């Protein structure tokens, strides 16, 4: 069936718009569920995300808290922001600038007993690249990061 000349353009236009609108609505719905939110330790302790939901945790690696577990590839440390502390475990190769007392953003999820399980760690790479969340930490935190990593 060849559609009538008058209607063809309209039909195609409406079809395309419906699909694109549908894609937009789906995207909006999916983003609300899938976007991973950023937390600092005090937010994570007072108002924790659902268990298992992908989030990011940013703060300072507490001095003296970094330990390597006996398997040699899992590390445990504490992220703090001066008000609260969150224990974190991570299995993998740590970024080279990840050290005690410096800033870190951990991607992962909250598990049993308030333990944060990180899949990925972002540390400060160099003077030009700072994880975006670290730029927006409170002044005191920012001063710490600057003092410790420069």
């Amino acid at each position, binding site marked *: *069936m*060849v*559609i009538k*000349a008058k209607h*063809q*353009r309209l039909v*195609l236009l409406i*079809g*395309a718009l419906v*699909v*694109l609108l*549908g*894609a*937009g609505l*789906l*995207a*909006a719905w*999916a*983003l609300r569920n*899938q*976007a*991973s*939110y*950023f937390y600092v330790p005090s937010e994570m302790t007072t108002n924790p995300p659902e268990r298992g939901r*992908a989030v*990011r945790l940013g703060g300072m690696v507490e001095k003296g808290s*970094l*330990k*390597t*577990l*006996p*398997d*040699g*590839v899992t590390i445990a440390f504490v992220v703090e922001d001066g008000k609260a502390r969150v224990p974190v475990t991570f*299995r*993998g*190769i*740590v970024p*080279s*600038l990840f050290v005690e007392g410096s800033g870190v953003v951990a*991607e992962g999820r909250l598990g049993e007993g308030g333990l944060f399980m990180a899949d990925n760690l972002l540390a400060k*790479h*160099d*003077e*030009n*690249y700072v*994880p*975006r*969340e670290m*730029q*927006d930490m409170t002044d005191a935190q920012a001063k710490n990061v600057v003092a410790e990593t420069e």
Partner: protein
Amino acid sequence: MTAEIGLAALWLAAGLAVLQLLAGSLALTRRGEALGGAVRPAAVVQGVLSLVAFLCLIYVFAVTDLSVKLVALNSHSMKPLVFKIAGTWGNHEGSMLLWVTVMGMAGGFVALIERRLPERTILATLAGQAFVSLGFYAFLLIASNPFERLSPAPREGNGLNPLLQDLGLAFHPPTLYLGYVGLSVAFSFAIGALVTREVGPAFARAMRPWVLAAWIFLTVGITAGSYWAYYELGWGGWWFWDPVENASLMPWLAATALLHSVSVLASRDALRAWTVMLGVVAFSMSMIGTFLVRSGILTSVHAFAVDPERGSFILALLAINIGGALILFALRAATVTEGERFALISREGALVFNNVMLSAILGIVLFGTLYPLLAEAMGAKVSVGPPYFNPMSALFAFPMLLVLAVGPMLRWRRDKFVRVGKALVLPGMLVVAAGLGLLIWGGVALLPFLGLVFAVGLALASLLPLKGRSLRRTPLAVWGMVTAHFGIAVALFGMSCESAFTVERLVAAKVGDVTEVGPWAIKLDAIEPVAGPNWTALEARLLVRYGADGKVVRLTPQSRSFWAPPQQTSESALLTRWNGQLYAVLGGEAAGETGEGRWQVRLWWKPFVPMIWLGGLLVAFGGVLALMGRVASDLRRTIARGRVADRQESRALLKERA
């Protein structure tokens, strides 16, 4: 001195762009027609001058002239020459200069060779090209002068980010830029055709080689970028949905859609307004991509320094160019008369479906990339990653792939599924067999499962358009289409295998320990210090063996420390076999009481992963074949037309004599 020559060339080029814009626009009015003659020469000279400016910048980088601020900030005298040269475009100013250079040269090229369209359309096109270029010249000269001097000159430069000191970098950004900016020609053609009301098959034929060429460069650029991220970052992944990757994917999606709609317009004179719209959208995506990358507004491994002033400048350019084009489109769309009609089930119908699906994927990627900005405006900090992008883009990609298997066999105008149904029985059976096989194998997640099944079916279906043709007489353009579609199937197979069958091991190994990953046995033989021109490293010597009786091969992943600027990177080591890749990364020494003498080694066995990039290259190669075919047939047509004209002339002469 060289820097001053470069700067002068840049100013002159900008001046010529003004001339090109004014003369081109005035020539469209009745009074200014005489000015038309100036436009083509202006475009050609502008292209040459921008090239001169860029060569000057390459020269100051090559000799490390530290009195130029850009060199001092981004280079270092101890760097190998190839990285000094590649460093020219490894920074903000240099890459923007590369952008205007490519744009100027593309404009010059159009002015030099394009003779098929009415002269008025070409003038409008070149004026449009000049308008867009001018914005970027202004941006360079006002907000980011690459030739700025430093006084006094420092003793030594800051160096280049070690992550970027890689051969991949030497070719990756220029390739992408050729693609981005190639789309600017499509954009200008769309503007030119709208202004002079020449939207039709002739316009589509003139625009098609440019779209094809830009699309080839984008495809190669994305493929190379993905491979670069894969081996250079040492994370084992090949696509991170990083904003910068998305910035290159979005123009590609738009260009792919444009490529298909432009051929409908060229051969069937349908989809007129839609093609013009896509021409505008494709280059808009290039500019949005540049804005995202250059403003540093989003978190990214690629982000250089964050600079709000530059961000707002590019944002303003973006608003003027895209807004202007959309207003022009709105004003003129009504005058673009409707093209030829077609049935829903027809080649056109399938291509429309493909276009809509590509646009939907484009919307999803764009939305996901910008969402963190929107959320931040409302006070929430979020990041969007694979859990959003993968399923959402798959939702529209799979229906598109389904139609991709059928579409090329449908006839133009109208057709019946029954006719092509028979040909699809074999691919259909293959799909069912592959599906059952995978189900019995078990443990494959939904998306890779679908991917594998579709890849098998599509690989066969993509070859079907060759059925019943004499292979020798098949036009190059058809070979191109078949190759590109087959490449999609190959890449899809690689991606699905990677996510379905990858095996990973992370161990802390003592020297002498043997680790197994998949079919491989890997022995940590030694850890040794090594040194390069501007780095030192720890190198692991791994002896790896495939299967019980394979040959022993040595792999040497490194953990490198650069000293200018000080930074550590891990150099992964790869071993490629026909059926996959072994990927090894060396971490640090395992710390703690139990850690001494143990080294962190991360290993992946990734079956068939090279197919991802092989497929990408096949897609690009298909584009090259199609481009060669188109250009050759255009040439033939031009020559034939010339002959006819000659013959008529001589006949006229003969008559006169008689």
